[in-house]
């Protein structure tokens, strides 16, 4: 477990295997909450937060409960359960002890419960046989990759709104999807990037 491998995981999660633009996970909030940069940042931070904690907790449950009982085949179901409960718990905890953070993330937290990027990251952690530290790092940096993608996309959409020089038929979601595709193409440029 060296710094290099941690850095390699981080780089992979943020750029090379960006959750939204390369693995196409979490597309729903990516398209839904990206009309303004402010909301995009809020959503991105909330996803980062939940992905990090979910990776940690799911690894613990997988390692100490599911694996000893030979129940790996129930991982998906168990993870969904964990994420849903975890998000609820975090929301309550934040509301009481960190009202500032709660206000900042408030609306976005419940939305994340059903975000497939969160489920995706914990399943990938298991698939790649990451240990506790690697899982958590992958979760947090995967969230940062989501944050990067959604903020970039929100700024693209803001500019599109300001200067609508595309055919009228493309107004709204079509042009958003086209620009999301172009952004995704740009991220293809990172494929093959590796750290030794």
């Amino acid at each position, binding site marked *: 477990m060296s710094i290099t491998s941690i850095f390699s995981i981080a780089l992979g999660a943020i750029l090379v295997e960006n959750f939204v633009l390369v693995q196409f996970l979490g597309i729903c909030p990516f398209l839904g909450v990206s009309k303004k940069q402010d909301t995009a940042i809020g959503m991105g931070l909330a996803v980062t937060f939940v992905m990090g904690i979910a990776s940690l907790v799911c690894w613990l449950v997988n390692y100490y409960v599911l694996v000893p009982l030979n129940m790996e085949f129930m991982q998906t179901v168990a993870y969904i*359960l964990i994420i849903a409960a975890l998000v609820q718990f975090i929301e309550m905890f934040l509301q009481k002890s960190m009202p500032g953070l709660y206000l900042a993330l408030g609306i976005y937290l419940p939305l994340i419960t059903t975000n497939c990027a969160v489920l995706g990251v914990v399943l990938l952690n298991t698939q790649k046989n990451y240990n506790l530290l690697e899982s958590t790092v992958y979760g947090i940096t995967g969230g940062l990759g989501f944050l990067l993608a959604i903020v970039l996309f929100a700024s693209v959409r803001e500019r599109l709104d300001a200067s609508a020089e595309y055919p009228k038929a493309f107004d709204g979601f079509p042009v958003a999807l086209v620009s999301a595709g172009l952004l995704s193409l740009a991220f293809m440029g990172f494929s093959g990037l590796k750290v030794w």
Partner: protein
Amino acid sequence: MDALLPIFLPVVVLGGLGTVFGAVLGVAAKKFAVDKDEREEQILGILPGANCGGCGFPGCSGFAAAVVSGEATTNGCAVGGSEVTALVAGIMGVEPEDAERHVAFVRCSGGARSNRKYDYVGLDDCFSALNAIGGGPLTCRFGCLGLGSCTRVCQFGALSLVNGVAKVNREKCVGCMQCVATCPKRLITKLPYSSETRVGCNSHARGAAVRKLCEAGCIGCGICVKNCPNDAIRVEDNLAIIDPAKCHNCGICVEKCPRHIIESVVSVRAEAKV
């Protein structure tokens, strides 16, 4: 029995996980319960729910919390007006404070009547235009760029572009003042609803300069000052300013202004009827 284990074990384990999580959440709900004042919920129910931020608090829930904690007065909600003020005061058990209704006003009537340095081709956004060469296409550095950044922030559809200049619909405007904060030229001000005669210019340039720059600019000639029967107008820094407290909306200045930039709601209405 061994054959049934793979079926029962997951049920037990997942059921156990679910029970544990449920218990933890139940305890957490009690432990982390946030004491909320009942009145906060009630006030939130009355508020318009536009979350415009015109009160200076983050959304309607922020305002409700601020009223209960005493940080805000009951008349803080501009959107709800006197009705909401009365209801909120009722919940709080205090006398309602009177709130004079305020509306936004764009202090420029240039638009198509103002001169341009060049044709601006770029984003339909006042901030972008302001960053273009020479601070934007307008020759007058005070005037409305007419690209409608304010019309897009208005949640109530009260702002629109008329002849290349933003205009406020007084009836739709609720006084949340989002546009005031947005306009990069700080052209939009808050005026009492009762103030019906307004100077549609914000130029502090000298008269001779204004004549060259814009056909709809105040040259500070003072004709309105001389003709006002109520001493409500003064010229300050080459710009006529009407004091809403003294103005009786007689409309004499509207007729006398050689530049036709003082506008009256009354005259607009008369025109509309014709």
